[in-house]
């Protein structure tokens, strides 16, 4: 029998941003989609997020930022992952992110950005389509 791996994702709030309702709702939606969701809580540094993601062996890191520091925090997470030789964890972001920033973030390895108004079902579908539990 081909054993199916369970998708493991991390939802993290980097930086000095106390607004975690969105992150919690997304964590819940991911759980209801059948994923195992590691939630780190508020006020994480990129370093603590990356170390936790490696220990938890997740397939995806979802970063939430509503405080405007995404241009530093999101790419920093990708950079630290690459420094540790990790290239199979997909990094996505969500929050209040201006259109102009989205292409810049994508160029720095944040694969997908979800902005206000994104539907939970669409996000779950995107993850199911684009993130596969690691093989081997």
């Amino acid at each position: 029998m081909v054993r199916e791996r369970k998708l493991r994702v991390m939802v993290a709030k980097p930086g000095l941003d106390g607004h975690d309702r969105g992150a919690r709702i997304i964590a819940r939606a991911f759980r209801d989609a059948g994923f195992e969701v590691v939630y780190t809580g508020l006020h994480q540094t990129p370093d603590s997020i990356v170390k936790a993601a490696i220990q938890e062996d997740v397939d995806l890191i979802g970063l939430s930022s509503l405080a405007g520091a995404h241009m530093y925090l999101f790419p920093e997470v990708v950079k630290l992952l690459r420094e540790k030789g990790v290239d199979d964890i997909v990094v996505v972001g969500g929050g209040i992110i201006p259109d102009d920033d989205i292409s810049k973030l994508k160029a720095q390895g944040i694969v997908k950005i979800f902005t206000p108004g994104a539907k939970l079902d669409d996000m779950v579908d995107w993850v199911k389509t684009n993130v596969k539990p690691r093989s081997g």
Partner: protein
Amino acid sequence: MSSAVEKVIAGDVRTVARLIRDIDDKIPGVRDVLKALYAHTGKAYVIGITGAPGVGKSTLVDQMVNHYRKQGKSVGVLAVDPTSPFSGGAILGDRIRMQRHSLDDGVFIRSLATRGHFGGLSQSTRSAIDVLDAMGKDYIIVETVGVGQDEVDVVKSAQTTVIMVIPGMGDDIQAIKAGILEVGDIFVINKADREGADKTFNELRQMIDMGHHRYEEGKWKPPILKAEAVFDRGVTELLETIEKHRKHLLSESGGKRPRKKKERVREELAEMIKSRLIQEVLDRLLETGEFDGAVEAVAAGETDPYTACDDLLLPKFRALK
């Protein structure tokens, strides 16, 4: 020795993390790695923490990690949260209370979901304990919600089991009395600044005293401690009590590693046979479609589950007849 085995022994975090995932996902090749790693286990001291949701398990574990780190000890944490029976997903939130340790290379924290299917939790958690042990952690703390046989089994594989309660949980103590009182080596009344702590203390003491026949001369009688984990109160005392229990176990077993006790090996081996057997048999039945066929037949009322079970199993186990 395979490179995975070497890397685990060298403490490589990524290898350890992936191996635990493989264990959890029941990847067949993992057994060979575990076989090779077993010779490198037995050095860590395993502590189980259990109690109802909200009593402060993660907060206490966080403080314990902090104390052990100050003593220069390395720590592994396995935090178990329930899988939703409806979606199969899980929110693993124990890390929230422990994230301050995530930058510390002497600490490895891993969240595990119960996954609920076919009694696999105790097996995979036990294997994860072995991995962290082989990795060289001095202490391994297993935190789980104390409901269900599986979770009780998990804490039973610890050398010292700590049961947490909070004041005003009369009914929950009743539940503990019926279920896991027997497996507790140390009781902690957390949030002890709340009203009713003394009452809870007395109730617990009474229940332990009622089982006094088990605590004859030379036997360990579970102490009851008060703590306010969030303020780091009572944690030093808990760690001291754990050390006392550790010494007690050592003297009881004549200085040998207590985990090697025959009763424990018996239990672990039986558990391993059980989960391996279920896995092999179910895999085969799922592969051939027989399992789903039987599910359809029973659901449609064409047969009863007892007959279906016989039809699935008996041809494979003639000896069972």
